């Protein structure tokens, strides 16, 4: 009950901030060079055509009116003139893409599965790798194993994703030919193919992130190992393995969980570079493309959705944290 209340409060706060954020985004992209009407119209439009397109997209209205219509659409839906009829966009309506009048919500819905697949899989990888190496290096502190692991995980974080991903692609698909070049298959169509094709994207993103988690796990494990209750169990002859797995790990997990939830949220906005590299039809790619084309409704839509995802993830992380560690009260 308290968690529910807490989460609701956080969400309400976040929605307000997100609205403010959308204002800022509107203003920012309003300033971005490139007349959206002209971009939407095409390369060789003349003045009248551009003017028509501008009117149709509602770009001739003052910015604040455009913004108000946008917010209105969010809650009540909107109608757009389309050919010989009207195109109704249901609430929550994030508007129409300026490139080809697709509904932003449907674009997001189409991009979400790939992005979610990527984020979730990468999460598993970085948790497994990060927790594993973090634990081992915490246990073998100062030893050679720790050093090797440290360098390996750092190799992940020190190599930008676009290099790491490309190297993986070339090594695994071109050189060794262990896997075909990945190309996204929706989970709903063929789960097995989905997994095989997502493997490399997962790996490159997961590896990149895992260094952070390895370090976090290592330091929080060490921190817990230095706590007094560990002393108790050692003084009672409990074996080191049990001390670590039963006691230290449990204490080391909450910060890892919290950070994971957060990263997961951020990643739902699209791991742009990974998606670009592997040709995943996800939100990140859509976002970059839309930014380039000054497709404001799509940009704002995606950023809002991501923002909401992160805020929810944040709240979830806090709740998880508090659940795992009763000493932390929700505030």
């Amino acid at each position, binding site marked *: 009950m308290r968690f529910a209340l807490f989460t609701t409060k956080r969400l309400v706060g976040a929605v307000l901030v997100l609205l403010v954020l959308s204002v800022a985004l509107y203003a920012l992209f309003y300033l971005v060079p490139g007349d959206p009407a002209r971009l939407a119209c095409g*390369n060789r439009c003349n*003045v009248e055509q551009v003017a028509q397109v501008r009117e149709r997209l509602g770009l001739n209205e003052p910015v604040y009116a455009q913004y108000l219509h946008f917010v209105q659409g969010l809650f009540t839906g909107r109608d757009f003139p389309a050919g010989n009829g009207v*195109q109704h966009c249901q609430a929550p309506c994030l508007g129409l893409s300026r490139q080809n009048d697709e509904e932003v919500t449907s674009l997001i819905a189409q991009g979400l599965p790939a992005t979610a697949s990527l984020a979730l899989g990468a999460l598993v990888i970085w948790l497994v790798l990060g927790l594993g190496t973090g634990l081992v290096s915490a246990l073998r502190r100062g030893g050679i194993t720790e050093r090797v692991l440290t360098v390996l995980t750092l190799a992940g974080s020190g190599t930008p994703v676009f290099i790491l991903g490309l190297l993986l692609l070339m090594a695994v698909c071109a050189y060794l030919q262990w896997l075909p*070049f990945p190309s996204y298959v929706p989970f709903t169509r063929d789960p097995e193919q989905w997994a095989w094709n997502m493997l490399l994207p997962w790996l490159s993103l997961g590896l990149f992130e895992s260094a952070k988690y390895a370090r976090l796990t290592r330091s929080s494990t060490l921190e817990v190992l230095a706590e007094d209750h560990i002393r108790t169990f050692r003084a009672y002859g409990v074996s080191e393995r049990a001390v670590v797995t039963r006691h230290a790990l449990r204490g080391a997990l909450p910060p890892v969980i919290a950070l994971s939830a957060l990263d997961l949220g951020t990643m739902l906005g699209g791991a742009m570079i990974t998606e670009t590299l592997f040709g995943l039809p996800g939100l990140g790619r859509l976002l970059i493309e839309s930014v380039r084309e000054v497709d404001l409704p799509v940009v704002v839509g995606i950023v809002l959705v991501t923002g909401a995802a992160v805020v929810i993830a944040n709240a979830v992380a806090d709740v998880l944290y508090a659940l795992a560690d009763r000493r932390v009260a929700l505030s």
Partner: protein
Amino acid sequence: AGPQDGDAEGGAGGKPAKGGKLLVLNTEPQVNFDPARLYTSGGGNVPSLVFRTLTTRKRADGEEGTKVVPDLATGLGRPSENAKVWTYKLKKGLTYEDGSPITSADIKYGVERSFAAELSGGAPYMRDWLVGGADYQGPFAKKGPKTLDSIETPDKRTVVFRLKKPVGDFPYVATQTQFAPVPKKKEKGAKYEKHPLSSGPYKVVRNENDGERLQLARNPHWSAKNDPHRHDYPDSIEVRSGLDPAVINQRLSTSSGDDAKAITTDTNLGPAELAKLGKDGNDAELKKRVGVGHFGYTNYLAFNPKVKPFDKKEVREAISYAIGRRSVVNAVGGTSLAEPATTFLPNQKALGYTPYDHFPAGKNGDPDKAREVLKKAGYGKGLAVTLTHSTDDSAAIGSKVATAVQQSLKKAGITVKLRGLERNAYDEKRQDAGDTPGFFLSQWGADWPAGYPFLAPIYDGRQIVKDGSNFNHAQLDDEKINKKFDAISGDTDLKAAARRWGALDREIGERALSVPLFHPVYQRLVGKDVKNVVISDWTGVLDISQVAVK
């Protein structure tokens, strides 16, 4: 030309046969799939599998491919009234994918809807040429006429276009997708692209993620009998786009699994991949799978003589002399990917190519000559200018070329400051007639393989667009030259016209209004099981309608 040996059967050799699934790996998603909104030369590549047009390009390798041939129409069109009226007769027995007949009214409607603001994006020519086209707002307009009277359909198989002025190139223009039939009762506005009605050998089965994934299947109602140019070898075609160019090329060269039956219709081999091709031992096989393509295109340095110091012809000449085309060509990948250019018209007969080099600079530029000319203009102590360019290197008008220009002009004492603009800002800036920069990188490609679309937008004084997209960067508005444009464009003898365009290019070249830098060359790689590779000089890319994977 097609693959190395020039035969039309590239890849694994052998006769093309029906069957299999063709995979298309592309960089750019097919965001628009509405025939009204497409702006692709010759009816595009993937779109031309679905949309048949009045005429179409000849699907042949190299120069032969620059020819225009009849498609839905029985001929290339019958000009009358001094090429101001063009009449087309449709073939018999043409149907859509649902079996319903294609009529001349559908052609008319297809052109009309391309005037609608909702479906903007197509080529501007009909608007400029059709009688009443300038004021027509498309069939959805609240005010004004719903139809365009200058397109007549006297019977179900005849369509007549009435133009404001003589246009000899009309058969070329009729290859564009705006001339694809659209039945009025299937109109869905912007949503039509979700499922456009196919008249070609394939139909759209699925369109996901805004054109990123396309699934095409054979159109059972298409018949090879009345479409001699396209084929329907593969059973199905899948287009996956949004891929990284390096990944596409790597996949094609590895050619494992499905990738063996893959092609790309928009991705060129990059410099690094070419370097690899030249070095590796086992790449004889790979080289066989590379086809070379040409598409009429010129990358050039543009001047705006209204801006100082480019108002002085000597300054423009000095830059022309100083330019080191070798560095520029290297910057875009070397001689395999670009040919140094001294003419504005690309090296293609159909365009009317006539060689000239008014300001010989050699491979590396002629800095001495440049200094000499500069001195005459009063810049003996050197000159500082700003070069505006795009920050986006993918179109070869970006920083790499700009830096190479900067380096080669430096030798002639010309200090170049680079001003890189983000893609949209750059486009807006260079196309803004009121505020065009004095010196910038630009490029131009042919809407069809003829001199008119290559030269007119750039040098015809009537094509200066005040508040829209202007391409007459030099804002040349010379009575004499304008007259020549009118005279040649009315010529329905396409060969003769080409010669005349070449002469005009040479004449304008003397004014040093631009410095041609290079004509790009395209190296196209295909998967190892791909057969019947055809690359025409019209599009420069592999013609998807000819490809077989069996």
